[in-house]
Structure formats: structure tokens, C-alpha cells
């Protein structure tokens, strides 16, 4: 990437500087640049790099959150022009998120929401202590692709199972994928309750969601537990 503007865009995301990102986005619009190109060649390169740096322990959660916020600010600035040109960045998918019934711990869930949103997903965050019925209702309402349930405590992990059962009971799966996460959650638990996926952290959750979207195929049930 040689263009200094794209390079500056990338850097504004890595620096977690929303003001700078917005300024560069406006500059691109003034120059008549294709906003989608500004995202794909500039800003998105930065967020990918930030994710990698976080993954290898070079960047930390506050850095990553700042990068995600800068990304969102840039996209928001570019969005009207993308809509005008009919080149809006299509959401990768719709994800309903919440913490399991009885669990009020939402730091992890919020982080996942921010990263998935910055990564291009449309997020419907139901907040904390969400009942299986609420998950099902929201998934139907917005025609969700993925439902994500977080649980910090061993005592509330059963709530993740209840959501998966409710999705099954309502005939939403396998079309809607169910993913789980949280401090006490393991891949073994995910397999045990038949979740479609599990990830250890927010960055892996983005990878997981992308993979699942590539696998959305109502006819192929064998792939269901491939990622669990």
C-alpha cells in the first residue's frame, strides 16, 4: 500500500484516533474517492492489523477498543456517500448477543459486540440476563444469522444450553447458528450442548462468526458442529 492517504487511514485506526479517522474519511470524500475503497484499502487494513497485534499480545484491550471505535467513526462518516453510490458495505451478517439468564457480567459480551461490529457485522445486543425466549424472539424479529450467548459463571452456563434448546424447539436451527463464550466456557462444554461454535476471546469470535457465515447452509447439517 503506497498511497499516503490509505497509509494514514490505516495508522489512524491502529492509533485508535477517531478524530483523525473522521478527518481522513472526509478528506477522501472531498477528493471524490470511492468510500468503499477507503474502507478496504485504508481503514480495514488497520483494524485487521490491530486484531493481529492484540492476538500476539502486542496491543491490549484498551488499544483494541480505541481502534474499533475509530473504525466505527470512519465508517459512519463514509456511510452516506456509500449509500448514495449504492456501494454500501454489506453487513457480513446479523448477530443477536446477550448474557445468559441470571448472569449480569457483560464486559466480555460488550467487547465481542464492539469487535464484531467493527468487523462488519450488524449487532443486536439484548444486554444482560437474557431469557431463552427473548433470544428466540429477537432472532425471529431481525432474521438473525447467529445468536451469541455469554456466561461468566459456572452457575449460569446452563442458560447457554437453554438458549440452544429454545432455538431448536422453535425450529430456528440449523439456519441460525448458536455461539457461546465466557470465562468458564470451554470447547468441551460447547460440544456437549451442541453449540455451533465457541471462542476464547473477542478477536477469535470475529473469525468464528466469519467462518460460520461462510458455512450458512440450511441443507448441510453435518457442518453444524465442525467448529465446536
Amino acid at each position: 500500500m503506497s498511497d499516503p492517504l490509505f497509509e494514514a487511514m490505516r495508522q489512524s485506526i491502529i492509533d485508535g484516533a477517531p478524530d483523525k479517522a473522521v478527518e481522513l474519511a472526509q478528506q477522501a470524500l472531498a477528493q471524490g474517492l470511492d468510500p468503499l475503497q477507503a474502507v478496504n484499502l485504508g481503514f480495514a487494513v488497520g483494524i485487521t492489523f490491530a486484531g493481529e497485534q492484540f492476538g500476539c499480545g502486542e496491543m491490549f484491550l484498551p488499544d483494541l477498543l480505541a481502534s474499533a471505535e475509530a473504525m466505527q467513526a470512519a465508517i459512519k462518516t463514509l456511510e452516506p456517500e456509500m449509500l448514495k453510490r449504492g456501494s454500501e458495505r454489506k453487513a457480513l451478517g446479523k448477530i443477536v448477543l446477550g448474557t445468559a439468564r441470571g448472569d449480569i457480567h457483560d464486559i466480555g459480551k460488550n467487547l465481542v459486540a464492539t469487535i464484531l461490529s467493527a468487523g462488519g457485522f450488524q449487532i443486536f445486543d439484548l444486554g444482560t440476563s437474557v431469557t431463552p425466549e427473548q433470544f428466540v424472539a429477537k432472532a425471529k424479529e431481525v432474521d438473525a444469522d447467529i445468536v451469541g450467548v455469554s456466561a461468566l459463571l459456572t452457575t449460569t452456563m446452563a442458560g447457554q444450553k437453554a438458549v440452544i434448546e429454545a432455538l431448536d424447539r422453535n425450529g430456528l436451527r440449523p439456519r441460525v447458528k448458536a455461539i457461546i463464550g465466557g470465562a468458564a466456557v470451554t470447547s468441551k462444554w460447547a460440544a456437549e450442548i451442541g453449540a455451533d461454535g465457541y471462542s476464547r476471546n473477542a478477536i477469535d469470535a470475529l473469525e468464528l462468526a466469519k467462518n460460520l457465515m461462510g458455512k450458512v447452509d440450511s441443507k448441510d447439517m453435518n457442518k453444524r458442529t465442525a467448529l465446536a
Partner: protein
Amino acid sequence: MLDPETLEARPSETRDLVRIVQVTETLPQFAAQSTAVVCSDALLSNSLLYNDACNGKHAPGAIADLYRLLVVLQHSDKPVVTGSFSAAGLEGMIDLLAADSGSPDRLRQQPRAVFDVCPSPPLNWSEFGSHNLIDLARAGVPAEIVSMPLAGGTAPVTLAGSVTQHAAEVLAGITLHQLAAPGAPIVWGGAPAIFDMRTGGAPMGAVETAMLNMACAEVGKHLGLPTHGYLVATDSKLVDAQAGAESARSAMLGALAGINMISGAGMLESLARFSVEKLVIDAESIASAYRLARGIEIGSDKVPSETLATAMFAQIGLSGEFLKLKETRALFRQEQHLPSPVIDRSARGSEPASDVLTRARTRVDELVSKYRKPSLSEDVLRKFQAIVDREADRAAVEEAESGKNVGVAQATK
């Protein structure tokens, strides 16, 4: 639970809780017994009177808090640290304790248990937590407010800012609690920690976490309240050098800060995992911490000697035979903490050298074989049975009703 043989984590079961109680019961280092783990295999039967492990029906998940208290009361004589998982669940637990004490009044006069109640950081009290505080105050059963600010995550990143938030949350809880029943017993508790900027976890073994606990307790002491903290825990997943270093360090710091009650012994992986073997190793750190807190004594009741030990020098002169002195024999048990064989001080030659986990396994087996189960009267057990049956029915009805709601939701679609 950390399985001591496979060294892998597995869901905790009733037999694990019983083993934790058996070990805690036999170790004088532990002043109280925690309802430490949730039993994934909770079974109920109508043969509670004669049998512990029974082939009954599964206990509803909603009474997991009651079930673990039941297991502890059946196996322990020590004071109990526990907590309720819901607003509705508290009543049954208090009834169980009242049955154990003889009557609600006796429980009030000499409460056997303290209940952890948690605010929701930052600066919130949930309906559930508030209800628990009020109900405990009215029952005269002590509440221990466990505020858990995570510095940088759910609280200001500065340690001082997190101490401030902790104080505000606990004071708000105390206000609620004391308005419900002025003078009701309360503990200035806490589980403050830093927020791990890589994982988003709460590193309980971090030195800053210990510093937070010390500072929060200092505020409580200033207010003249009994204090509590969460220390002697580790972030390691195994019983290894990290586990030992972090747990022993915070045990020392907690003792130096004079915190009255400390939870956390036996715990690994930031409080997510328990190990009975770690519990017996932590008992050694705790004994050392007690010793440290006692300090170097001069002419105290325990160590009746004069400061410069001139009498001992006079008797022995230059011969160096202090070992022969009657003072040595009379005082060494007070002057030195004598560790169990978990701590390796063996002389060279007593090979093969073993590691601490191996020694801890042996120690756990020894303690369990020494343990004697307290005997409860048939009358108390009968009362336990009635309470557990009643609560199981209540929980089953609640579960069925929430199932019904799902049915309704389906029907409307």
C-alpha cells in the same frame, strides 16, 4: 475441580465438596468452611436421614445454593461462608441454618453462617442483591458485602479510584441493610482486582489485586467494621510454582493488613477452579502468615522471656548447647511454626525428592482418613429433609412455569 490425577479440570461434584469439607474441617488454619463449589451432580432423595450419597432424582438447578449448604452442614462443625444464587433461594437457606441452630432465634443470637452479597459494579445494586441484604438483615444473619471493582474494566483504572468505588458500593449496601434492621451484623467485604488488559479477566494473583484488598480493608477498619478480602488465590491453572508464589504472597499481605476474614484458599484460575491439594498447600502459607502477623514477641504470654535472653546466655556460656535448655523446649513451638510434611525441609539424602503436589496428595489422603463426620440429630435431619423437599418443589414449579412461557411464545408465533 482440578483432578489431582489427570491434572485436568472437570465439573465439581458432591464428592469434591465433601472432600473439601473433610480437609478444611481437620485443618486449624481454616476458621470457617466455605460452600466452595457448585455440585453438578446434585441429587435429592427422601433418604437424607441415613444416607448422603443417594440414588435420588436430580435437584433442580435453582436450588444448587441450598444443596451445597446442605452438604456442608451435614459434614462440618465450623462457621460457614456461603451465598444465595437468587432472591427466592435465600429463605430456604436461612431455614436450613435455623434448623441447624435449633430455631430462628438461636440462629439470630449466634449465627453460624455469613452470606456473601454482591453489588453490580459500577455503583449498582441489583434487585436480587438488595433483596438478599434486606432479608439477611431482618433474619439477623450476617451479610458480607463483596464488592468487586475491576480496575480498568468495571471501575477506574487507578487503584485509588477503585478503592473509592468499592467504598461507595459497600456504603450504599450498608445503608440499605441497616435501614432494614438497624444494628444487623455486616462485614466490610470485597473481591477487588485489577482488570487484565490482555484477557479481560480478573487476575486474583496480581500484586495490585492484593494491594486493592489491603486498601479496601483499611477503609473498613477506619469505619470500625469487620473486614474481608479475597486473597490466597492464583491465576495459574495448575498447582505449580506460580500458584504457590501468588497465594503465599497475598496470604502474607492480607495478614499484614490485618484483614479479619480471607476467602480464596484452594482456588486456581482466577477463582474458577478448585484444588483440594492446593488447599493443603495454602494452609501452610496461611500458617506462615499467622506467624508473621504475630511478629517477634518479647515477654508476651506465649513467649515469657526477657528481651536480651541474658539468662539463657548465662546458663550456656560458650558451650552453644541451646538445644538442652528447658526454655528451648518450652518455647520453640511458640517461636516457630512447624509445617506439615507438605513443606519439604528434609535433609539431603532423604531422596528421592518429591514435588509439592505429590506431598499434598498424600497429605489430603491423611487428613481425610482423620476426619470424623459430625453427628446431627434425627430431628434436625428431618427438618432439613422437609426444607429441601419444599424448596425443590418450589424450584420445580418455577421451572415448569418458565417452560410454560416458552410454550405460550411458540403458540403465538
